[in-house]
């Protein structure tokens, strides 16, 4: 049946056909035709953010929790520029996102029209791909393609800039395109898999190094199976936490700048590093020349540009992680590798991670453990960026892929609250906890009212030390204790702010039994802010000083 539809109606219909049921955004002049059409949709729920960056991170929260592309909307000019940070964040962590922005009418592009900005040009370096749509007809090709690009290969954000006159242009549509779906990646080269297996089978001290690609590929179970079959002690990047349960006997936890000592020391001794969906980020490797100095490297990644980028691999395999591990598993020998596993356990015993004073819920680790004690593995744990993020990465018992949502590559303060809202919108059945700091929460605090409006089940645990903690820490350690611009001289009353935004709030500082208060706050449905003061002098330890080798850790 042929229908006459506007570009705006086509856009909304294509999102519906794509299976999109929740979008986040803010309307404005140049995207009003799309909003008019969206208002008529019974399939799509629109979440009205209070800042476009919040909308971008809500979409990220949905995408990170589900693995499926999610959508955010913004108008032209400032609407689009406000989205950019969330898009750049998605690029660095390979998160499938489709951002749709309104643009001034085609005839006005390039005239410095009201709320005109070169969204296409601005978004080139921070998207996987971007489009400036020039006709309603083109939308039929561009929108499914955007979803395909976002979800295929190494996932990433795609931006579609749609001029207002394209949104209002009416055309006849007789046939709808198929929704854009993930395209299968080329299979791993069996000859290279064979070589990799030989190398693993003959290694004495191999380590499996899991990155975010394992999560994206849904390959956590295969990675654990490989580790168990070949007895491979396993490290994870910040992005991969949850891929292997932290309490798995082979798990060596997170590697790099804030790893436990035993983790980095084990890497120092390994003779084979099997990097899987990881990209040798500087926070993971420390000084690259001193990273795994004795090791040969097998590197498996879906993005060929990651191979040999930082470290030259002895065997580099371009493939989907799940597919490659599926080929590798049957050709890798069962091996108890007793000497190396014993050595790895000895390092754990000799250089343990110090979760000091975990029994005190008013300490940073104690608070994290107390929160964990109120939850099971079904909960989603989001964080903001800073000391609290590293402490949660170190101390929270993460056991499930997609349990952990954090801004890794870009390290964006302000990520936590809106990402947690997005996760809660996508996974209504789960409790979502957002650990945040007093610096981070202020960067997107306006979304508390969105949380109230949507009545999402999120618990914001605000670890308040009245400082920009990681800056404070670096100034203390590496800048002669010259503290500057890292201590807040005025702190807001966060409980009153939360209540003012319409969400429940408790201040653990004022309760004699903070654990009971915490349990009650977490078990009560709906959004809640839980404020807890922590000691500003606490550092994230151990720490590899910037530029140093991972073995040269300081503290704890």
């Amino acid at each position: 049946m042929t229908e006459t539809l506007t570009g705006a109606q086509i856009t909304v219909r294509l999102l519906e056909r794509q299976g999109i049921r929740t979008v986040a955004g803010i309307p404005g002049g140049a995207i009003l035709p799309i909003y008019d059409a969206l208002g008529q949709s019974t399939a799509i729920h629109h979440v009205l953010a209070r800042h476009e960056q919040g909308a971008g991170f809500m979409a990220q929260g949905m995408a990170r929790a589900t693995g499926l592309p999610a959508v955010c909307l913004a108008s032209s000019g400032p609407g689009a520029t406000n989205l950019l940070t969330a898009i750049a964040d998605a690029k660095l962590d390979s998160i499938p996102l489709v951002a749709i922005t309104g643009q001034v009418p085609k005839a006005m592009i390039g005239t410095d029209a009201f709320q005109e900005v070169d969204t296409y040009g601005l978004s080139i370096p921070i998207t996987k791909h971007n489009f400036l749509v020039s006709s309603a007809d083109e939308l039929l090709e561009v929108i499914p393609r955007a979803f395909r690009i976002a979800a295929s290969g190494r996932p990433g954000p795609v931006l579609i800039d749609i001029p207002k006159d394209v949104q209002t242009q009416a055309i006849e549509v007789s046939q709808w395109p198929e929704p854009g779906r993930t395209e299968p990646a080329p299979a791993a080269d069996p000859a290279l898999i064979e070589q990799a297996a030989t190398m693993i089978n003959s290694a004495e001290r191999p380590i499996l190094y899991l990155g975010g690609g394992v999560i994206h590929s849904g390959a956590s179970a295969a990675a654990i199976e490989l580790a168990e079959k070949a007895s491979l002690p396993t490290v994870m990047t910040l992005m991969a936490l949850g891929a292997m349960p932290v309490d798995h006997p082979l798990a060596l936890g997170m590697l790099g700048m804030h790893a436990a000592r035993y983790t980095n020391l084990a890497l120092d001794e390994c003779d084979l590093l099997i990097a899987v969906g990881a990209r040798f980020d500087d926070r993971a490797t420390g000084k690259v020349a001193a990273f795994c100095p004795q090791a040969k490297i097998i590197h498996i990644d879906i993005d060929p540009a990651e191979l040999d980028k930082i470290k030259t691999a002895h065997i580099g395999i371009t493939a989907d992680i799940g597919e490659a591990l599926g080929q590798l598993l049957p050709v890798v020998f069962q091996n108890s590798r007793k000497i190396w596993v014993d050595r790895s356990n000895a390092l754990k015993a000799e250089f343990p991670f110090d979760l000091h004073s975990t029994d005190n819920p008013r300490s940073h680790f104690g608070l994290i453990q107390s929160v964990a004690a109120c939850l099971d593995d079904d909960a989603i744990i989001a964080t903001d960026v800073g000391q609290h993020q590293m402490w949660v990465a170190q101390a929270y018992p993460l056991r499930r892929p997609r349990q952990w949502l954090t801004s890794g590559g870009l390290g964006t303060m302000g990520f936590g609250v809106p990402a947690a809202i997005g996760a809660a919108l996508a996974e209504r059945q789960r409790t979502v906890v957002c650990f945040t700091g007093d610096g981070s929460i202020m960067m997107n605090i306006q979304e508390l009212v969105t949380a109230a409006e949507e009545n999402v089940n999120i618990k914001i645990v605000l670890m308040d030390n009245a400082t920009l903690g990681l800056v404070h820490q670096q100034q203390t350690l590496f800048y002669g204790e010259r503290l500057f611009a890292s201590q807040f001289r005025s702190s807001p009353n966060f409980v009153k702010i939360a209540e003012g935004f319409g969400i429940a709030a408790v201040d653990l500082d004022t309760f004699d039994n903070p654990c009971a208060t915490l349990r009650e706050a977490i078990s009560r449905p709906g959004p809640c802010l839980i404020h807890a003061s922590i000691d500003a002098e606490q550092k994230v330890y151990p720490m590899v000083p910037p530029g140093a080798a991972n073995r040269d850790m300081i503290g704890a």
Partner: protein
Amino acid sequence: MNAINRNEQNAIARAVLEIDVNNHAGVMSHVVGLFSRRSYNVEGILCLPVGDGRQSRIWLLVNEDQRLAQMMKQVEKLEDVIAIRRHNADHAVFQDLETFFRP
């Protein structure tokens, strides 16, 4: 173009890249943006449509650099790039253009 003179430029090892791309507005920005963000100067650019005009060919003259292999991989990842090939600096494409570039 940077400020070093032609003799100095000739002393630097060069490479010529041949890139087949889809022909639409913005593709050149995608390609050269990968170089500019890495402070990797592009010494020469030629671009014209090929065949029916749906595709173009971009020729880039660049300095040899240890980053070149990574650059080529990054270019290859772009959605609008169909193929990239590397040639030596003595490739004919830039040879006969001297007359258009006299100071």
